[in-house]
């Protein structure tokens, strides 16, 4: 609004050089945007088109002979439903734990009366800047008997120093008088936390929640390193194994295919159709929540930038 209001009187006419600039600019951005978006579109249209056409490479721009058999078949694959459950579980529980811990610690570190408050805060924050490395982490998880348990996804991720900093900074911006008034009214520590700090810092907590949820959903390395039990595979890891096991996937396909005596070519699973369908299942939650929470992402990034 403001920009245009002021721009119009200043810029009299667009010169031909301006036109060339704008055309090039729009073209380049349009092209890059297409490059970013097209792969997702490609996966989706191929997963819902007839598999024989898809395998022949006929589906590049518009879906043909739309069918959803792929999605039904894919859930019959052994391991997929458990993987979905594991991924959803770790995303929900993990994000909830991280949000609670970040909120609570962020609030607690604003309590100036705490014994050696600054020391503990530093002890937590400094862990952002080092890590023991892959093998020592693996050994630690083993020592703590966390390998091959669901909790290896959750517990190590509970305290995240960066989130604690963000929430602390935010809580500090809440007027102190609010807390003081509550304290005079006899509100204890937890009342002040649940009744004032939590509700007042929802914007930052939403940011933390989204970040934590996306990180949990996308995480792949922890399954790779700490998990050998197939029941605990996350969706991401399962997708990875499917990408790399073309031969075993083919046999999987055959075994599911034989259930239907005469498989229709259009709906018969191919390794590629399975890969694409699972990819879509993996990316869909992100596609859905992303536009809704884009603002939060950006806000988190900006607070991080100020602090970072």
């Amino acid at each position: 609004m403001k920009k245009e209001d002021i721009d119009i009187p200043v810029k009299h006419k667009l010169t031909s050089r301006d036109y060339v600039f704008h055309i090039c600019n729009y073209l380049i951005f349009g092209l890059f945007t297409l490059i970013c978006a097209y792969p997702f579109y490609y996966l989706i249209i191929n997963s819902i088109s007839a598999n024989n056409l898809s395998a022949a490479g006929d589906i590049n721009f518009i879906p043909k002979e739309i069918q959803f058999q792929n999605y039904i078949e894919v859930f019959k694959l052994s391991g997929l439903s458990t993987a979905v459950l594991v991924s959803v579980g770790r995303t929900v529980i993990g994000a909830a734990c991280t949000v609670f811990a970040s909120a609570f610690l962020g609030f607690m570190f604003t309590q100036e009366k705490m014994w050696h408050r600054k020391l503990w805060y530093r002890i937590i924050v400094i862990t952002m800047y080092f890590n023991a490395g892959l093998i020592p982490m693996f050994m630690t998880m083993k020592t703590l008997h966390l390998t091959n348990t669901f909790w290896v996804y959750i517990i190590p991720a509970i305290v995240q120093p960066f989130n604690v900093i963000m929430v602390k900074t935010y809580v500090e911006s809440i007027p102190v008088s609010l807390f003081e008034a509550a304290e005079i009214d006899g509100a204890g520590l937890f009342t002040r936390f649940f009744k004032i700090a939590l509700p007042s810092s929802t914007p930052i907590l939403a940011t933390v929640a989204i970040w934590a949820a996306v990180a949990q959903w996308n995480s792949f390395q922890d399954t790779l390193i700490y998990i050998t039990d197939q029941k605990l595979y996350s969706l991401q890891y399962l997708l990875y194994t499917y990408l790399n096991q073309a031969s075993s996937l083919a046999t999987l396909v055959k075994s599911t295919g034989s259930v239907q005596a005469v498989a229709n070519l259009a709906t018969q699973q191919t390794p590629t159709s399975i890969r694409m369908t699972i990819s879509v299942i993996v990316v869909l939650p992100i596609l859905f929540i992303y536009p809704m929470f884009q603002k939060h992402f950006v806000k988190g990034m900006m607070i991080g930038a100020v602090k970072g």
Partner: protein
Amino acid sequence: MKMSKEESAVSGGSKAVPAKQQRPGGKSSEKYRLFLCIVPFLILVFLFSYFPLYGWVYALYDYKAPLKLSQCDFVGLKWFKALFSNPTQVKQLLVVMKNTFAMSLLGIATSFLPVLFAVFLNEVKCKWFKNIVQTLTTLPNFISWTLVYSVAFCLFSSTGMLNSLLQDMGIITEPLKILDSDKHVWLQMILWSTWKGLGWGAIMYLAGIAGIDMELYDAASVDGAGRWQRIKNITIPLIMPTYFVMLMLNVANFLNNGMDQYFVFQNSFNKQHIQVLDLYVYNIGMTGKSLSLATAIGVLKSFVSVTLLAIVNFVSKKTRGESIL
């Protein structure tokens, strides 16, 4: 009965004590009470951030997987020495370091792209177009590397979209080998990380540009400054501090390429050019040969990283009077 009566009498008595007297005692215990509330979290931090450091002792032993550490031989600095003296080891490490340096340098060399992206997107005046560009180009940042690989596989594998398209058009007869070849691995990797990260990387600069006072531009326009002059003299100088911080962090993370990207793209064809330090540690530690050697490399890497971070922070303090940590 008697006891309880007495107790109630005592507690009744303490209740009767004026609140003012109770306060001081309450306050001194308050500070410990506050501390006790965060103890569980401190324990978590200790367990998952500090306790693992103890694992560095594995680098001093000849650790064999199922055994206990006490059952293994103490070898002192053998692994550290081996890294620099054993010829095959040195050769392998050199290859790995070459890849690590290549990827990090390419990363630093392309770190100006998000700045350009932001500066030029800012010149786009059409709002809906700008929004679409921003939304769709940041999307790849939020998918995992596994999924990026899946996308790559569907588009560029020998049966993928590109090959079938080119074959249909009769341009090629044999499928192009893209993912399963040792050619242009570094280029591919930097292209993928640019694809994934460019739009997101620009957001910070876009926000920075949005914070620039419009009057500056107007004043410049009135003075007859053209588009390029405004970009050169206003926009770029004002987002330079942010760029500097990002650049410094890039330098500090020189050895930390992360392993996800390289892990998902690695195969037997491109291993020579894709194995960066993080991946190498995983490959030798987890898939076989030596946990101890992998730990030793990890320890060295940690020291170098922390040193780099300290140096970068020092440089930042000297040049900008501001630390980046």
